[in-house]
């Protein structure tokens, strides 16, 4: 297994966590770590299918635009509305204030179409 690279190890680790511990909620920090950008959409497709099948809610953090876009494409391919994005921003007029913004596939699709940054 050590010959198969970080992406395989990462994916296996996440799947083991789901099947072995059977959580209702799974938290993954910087989910894109170890994943090659071209493989992210397939990673998300597989993970979303398992999450739905096992009735697990995932909260994942990322700084990666590719990862967000891959999740969006995977969610669109799955159908339904399995994905919500939540972003934290610091106000420039009040740097002590953090605001949370949620958005879904429609806004993300528009951002991809217009090449707008959503991180």
């Amino acid at each position: 297994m050590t010959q198969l690279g970080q992406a395989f190890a990462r994916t296996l680790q996440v799947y083991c966590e789901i099947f072995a511990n059977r959580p209702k909620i799974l938290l993954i920090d910087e989910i894109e770590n170890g994943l090659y950008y071209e493989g992210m959409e397939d990673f998300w497709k597989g993970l979303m299918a398992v999450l739905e099948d096992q009735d697990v809610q995932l909260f994942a953090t990322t700084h990666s635009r590719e990862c967000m876009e891959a999740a969006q494409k995977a969610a669109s391919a799955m159908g339904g509305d399995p994905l919500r994005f939540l972003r934290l921003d610091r106000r420039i007029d009040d740097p002590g204030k953090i605001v949370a913004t949620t958005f879904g596939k429609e806004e993300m699709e528009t951002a991809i179409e217009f090449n707008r940054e959503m991180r």
Partner: protein
Amino acid sequence: MKQHTPKPLVLCEGKEDLIVIQTLANHAGLDGKLTFQQYCGKDKLRAYLHQLKVSPEYARGEYSRILVTRDADSDFASSWQALKDSIAEAFSCETIKLGEWVKHESGPEIAAWIVPGPGKTGMIETLCLDSSRTKAPKVFECLDSFMACLAAIHGGESHEKTRFALWTIAAQGAGAQKRLSLERAIPNLPIDWDGAAFAELREFLVGIAS
């Protein structure tokens, strides 16, 4: 680079609208005081506004005000209604009036503007052409007769954008070969940025930054 001072945002219907309105703003002394974006046509406005409302710049408070513009085209009333509806749906503000700033929720003030101006039909190209007629009358004599000739051949008037595209080439004389885009052409066009044609839009833009 992150912006640290909130600025008004001017949303333009297309790339050419953005170039003209930004150049007008610069001539009015607003260089660097406004942010400009384009939403790639009226059919994309609704989706663009929804995305804008959840964008990082909006959440961070980088827009002090938002002006949404679109062309009237051939029907001012229906264009205005469509613009109002798009803004009302995205920002939940029902009381939009042309050229008036409306406060909504906790976000920046929003206003809407129809080009070429209140109650008028046409587009940004109309303003450019109207503002240039007195500065370059011979070019327009030539262009108008050429357009009339084309209309007779084709059995109908050409679109205003066709006239505008031909004019941007013709008005440059020998420099026309360098017209790869309006962005390159516009410094050489005889547009009267201080003239009456642009007065309403110019004054409104100046008012945004004040």
